[in-house]
């Protein structure tokens, strides 16, 4: 079954999908996911996900922004073309602070957003989940769980019966 992406199960409530996810996690599956219309509190733990890596991007962006600001101001006003205005020093971290601060935030925001897109591998306009006819429910009021056929533990029959054992309201195959 090369054209089968995985098995999709539908649940009605956040509690049901949460318990199902805990069981899938404990069964040791690797390539599986939960699809919900909104983030469910505690689902990361139920899926066994680690804390997100996005903050690391933020730190890198922020540091770059601050250094950029300070060095830009030093370069332009105290090095490349020195101008003496208002009896102020050519360079001082005090007056350079507001601009460097803004750049810190600007760069951090861009870095975090880029980080999120990289970690999530977005934009990805083609995905098996988007192809099912249940897609409108996915972003409305139903909760889904799927296990991919690429998972090392995957077995057409056993995985299907395992999923049915999670008491979903509906089980279906996903096309690649």
């Amino acid at each position, binding site marked *: 079954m090369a054209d089968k992406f995985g098995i999709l199960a539908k649940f009605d*409530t*956040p509690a049901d999908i949460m318990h199902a996810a805990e069981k899938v996690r404990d069964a040791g599956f690797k390539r599986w996911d939960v699809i919900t219309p909104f983030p469910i509190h505690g689902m*990361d733990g139920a899926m066994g996900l680690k804390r997100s890596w996005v903050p690391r991007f933020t730190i890198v962006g922020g540091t770059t922004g601050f250094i950029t600001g300070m060095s830009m101001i030093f370069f332009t006003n105290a090095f490349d073309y020195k101008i003496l205005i208002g009896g102020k020093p050519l360079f001082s971290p005090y007056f350079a602070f*507001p*601009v460097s601060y803004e750049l810190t935030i600007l760069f951090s925001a861009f870095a975090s957003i880029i980080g999120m897109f990289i970690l999530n591998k977005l934009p990805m306009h083609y995905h098996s989940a988007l192809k099912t006819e249940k897609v409108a429910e996915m972003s409305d009021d139903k909760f889904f769980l799927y296990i991919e056929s690429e998972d090392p533990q995957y077995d057409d029959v056993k995985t299907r019966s395992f999923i049915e054992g999670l008491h979903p309201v509906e089980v279906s195959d996903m096309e690649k």
Partner: protein
Amino acid sequence: MAGASSHSQEVRPAILDEVNPVDIPRQACVDNNRSFNWITEKICGIIEEKTPTWWWVCFIIACATASFTFIGLGYLVVTGVGVWGLANPVNWGWAIVNFVFWIGIGHAGTLISAILCLLRQKWRTSINRAAEAMTIFAVVCAGLFPVFHVGRVWFALYPGYLFPFPNANGIWPNFRSALLWDVFAVSTYGTVSVLFWYIGLIPDFATVRDRAKTKFRKIAYGIVAMGWRGSNRHWSNYEMLYLILAGLSTPLVLSVHTIVSFDFAISLVPGWHTTIFPPYFVAGAIFSGFGMVITLMLPLRAIYGLQDLITQYHIDCMTKIILATGTMVGYAYGMEFFIAAYGANDFEIFAFVNRAFGNYAWAYWIMISCNVISPQFFWFKSIRENTTLVWVISLFVNVGMWFERFVITVTSLSRDFLPSSWGYYSPTVVDIFTYLGTFGLFSVLFLLFLRFVPLMAMAEIKAVTPQADPHHAHTHKAGSGDYVNN
């Protein structure tokens, strides 16, 4: 999770058995137990229905009003900055007043989306989308004034009035000037606000895409939804990003009005040079912004029948914030007066006495009555529950905050150190029409937003309903709490 499991192994403290909370129920963020599907239908319905007639009427009026601004600015560009009422000694007039006014309006949007997110105030979810849109459009209106006040706008970009490029003599912009800090602050603010807004929109765009009936809508919303599919692995990073953006926007929004206040406070003009300006401006900005949020949201609530999503609880919260920030602004007015008297600087004392009793006393007392007195009505529950009165007071707040900036800018300049150059500032027709037009521009943008973008953050509202809590369903599933669809 690890914390929860280790908990159960410990000995349970005896005091926990005595715990018996008094019943003061929390007010729900969504009234009438609306289901997830009801929320989707309600909000997507607004942009999926046929364009209503009132929308077209408003849109045409807004476009006509916005044309005032463009005519005014066009006239300024072809004629010169002299068409504005600026003249010695008042060389900062309506342009900066309008700029600060609009920037301030924007602050409530960021406050709602960022600070209230960090404070875990769930009620923010119904209003944050519209408030953030308001922020962006307000920044657009604000930005027009500093860009156009240079007259020859094409120089704004190159050589660097506004951006760090050297001019023909190789001289760079002066980074000791607060006006250049403003450029960085406002452009960062605009950019980050747009990004934050857009990130919040991605899951909702996905919902609209999945419901789309026509090919065009599918593709258009599909592109902006970035292929979002609601995967929890994505939500995990997404929520972290959202929290970080909230964490970044909070110091950002504080810094923007701080830097705007530096425009005044780093000078030596009496009435401007005072150390409380940064937090005072920030409080004022949030105050005016919430005024505008109420001015916009109450009519929308009535038109679209959103009473279940913008409940009395939301109105209560917003009016209380107006009351709190209005009182903070009052504290700052008081401090300025006190320190002027205490500081024993004759010029400083004169500046404040002149504000209250001098040539612009009328503006000063409009400011005091609108900003300090009118919000005090919100102490009374009966007034908070009267939607019409709340709306009227919110208009007063908007008016008052415009006058605050007018008072600060103009009174100090019109009576500076040298009595021989004292003067009285009056705006010209061009000033007035350019300013009035910005309300049209703002409305045009806001009306477009109403038509094409989900008005409320559906995913976030769903997440704060009681049925979204995975622990909630156990106890209430079987009971009467079945969630109604319509």
